[in-house]
């Protein structure tokens, strides 16, 4: 009797050990993560389509938390922040996107645009230069010229102020 019971237990174990059953029983963490990502992406797109920027931003943050090394998500988050007027925060995310994927002209140009708004003309010029040198960067040439105009203007103003200061001091 005892041996029969042992045999049954062994058989049950043998039955459960069938690879197909194990596959069916195990929940794959990678599949769960992929599914979560898919849901967040769909939600993000839904919010973007319905112009609900704040909700889109929180979905984008969830995606960034899931995939912190994804430059495109950082870029998108920066863009959403820019739309809600948080230029400083947007700049930090664009910088991160540029760090993660320096060869992408769009990211460099976005950083240049934000730095231009923050009046960091030197930073904007270097970002636009990087954008122009990217494979698809010819379309940013006009932006680079604009940034350089601003930069020259700023340099001129600073020189004028210094000169004026010197004259005042002499007097």
């Amino acid at each position, binding site marked *: 009797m005892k041996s029969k019971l042992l045999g049954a237990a062994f058989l049950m174990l043998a039955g459960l050990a069938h690879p*197909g059953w194990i596959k069916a029983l195990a929940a794959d963490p990678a599949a769960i993560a*992929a599914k*979560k990502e898919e849901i967040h992406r769909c939600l993000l797109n*839904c919010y973007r389509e319905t112009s609900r920027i704040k909700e889109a931003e929180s979905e984008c943050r969830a995606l960034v938390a899931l995939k912190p090394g994804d430059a495109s998500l950082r870029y998108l988050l920066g863009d959403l922040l820019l*739309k809600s007027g948080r230029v400083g925060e947007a700049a930090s995310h664009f910088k991160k996107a540029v760090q993660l994927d320096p060869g992408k002209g769009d990211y460099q140009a976005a950083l240049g645009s934000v730095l231009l708004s923050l009046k960091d003309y030197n930073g904007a010029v270097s970002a636009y230069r990087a954008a122009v040198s990217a494979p698809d960067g010819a379309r940013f040439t006009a932006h680079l010229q604009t940034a350089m105009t601003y930069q020259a203007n700023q340099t001129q103003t600073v020189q004028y102020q210094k000169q004026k200061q010197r004259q005042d001091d002499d007097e």
Partner: protein
Amino acid sequence: MGKKLLDFVGQGQRAKRHSRIGNLLYVSFLITCLAFLSTNSCRAGDADDPGPWRSISVNRHVVQANRLMQERRYGNARDEYLKAISINPGIVDIHIGLHEACKKYPDWAQDLTTMEKIFELEPSTKKQYSADYGVALYHAQRYDEAIAWLKKGLSDMNSVMLPSPLPPTNKDAVTVWKAPPVEAPVAKPAIAINPDQLNTNAGGLPTTKASWGRQQFTWTPIVTMEERSKLAQNFENACHSECIVVAEYLGYQKGDIHYNHPPRAEFRIVRILKGPPLNKALPLRYEFHDHTSSDPPAGWKFAENMMPGKNSQWILFIPHAVPRLQLFDTYEGSYGRQAATEENLNKIYALLEKRGETLH
């Protein structure tokens, strides 16, 4: 004598022990073989086997569809599932297989219909498939409904483990998934459809094989200029401009004028609402589009009447108070020029007041 007797008894016990181990191994071998055969026989799909559907033709289509799914010929698999469903529309597992095929092909319109049919046949599957239904709704551009279902799906992810994505081959192969001891957050959808009121079986455990796929959702998150402009065009964003003025239109410089080559328009500043004290003479790049599309409408040609009436007053949003190539740009092209109506001015003053940016 006594020793011989003891030896005899010892041999008997050893023989008995050996036979017991032999029996055990023999029975376990038999059962393993049976288990193996029973699992594989479900997949084999003999052509004349009525299978779990109790219909040779249905089984034939399902087996064929499953084979096509494995070969990643999802469009053909969908057609086979549809043929099986046309013979017997009441089997939920075949609808689940069809949903898998539609999702991977993808055929979102058919997927939506299929999912609705699955929910109708087995309401307890709503919990498992809420996210999938949300995805299908998103692709069908029914965004508000999609949001509610996707949120529901996300909260259900915490309470239901992902089942295997294998297409159904045997109706009797039912797998019950254990819920982890996590309290799922309650989703609160803002629209008419309320997935919280869906029927779920006791304990929230799904009862059939589900099909949450493992394939990556291909999507490029690059925001195009058009999308960006579409979302940016409101007074709240426009008021971030460095300079907002009320200006009077004086005239424009004639020359080579095209949709993407705007003329120089001369304005005179009447009142500065925000920003530095610019020169009264304001040369402006008079753009004909608001950056949502740089493609001109069919048959577009510049005409005098496209310019504003002389001495008409406009609110100009200037994002950077420095001219670019001698001309000032307006926020989002033509959007940055708004008629100086009482209503618009009121809105802008309210926004500036809120931000503490009023000059007076």
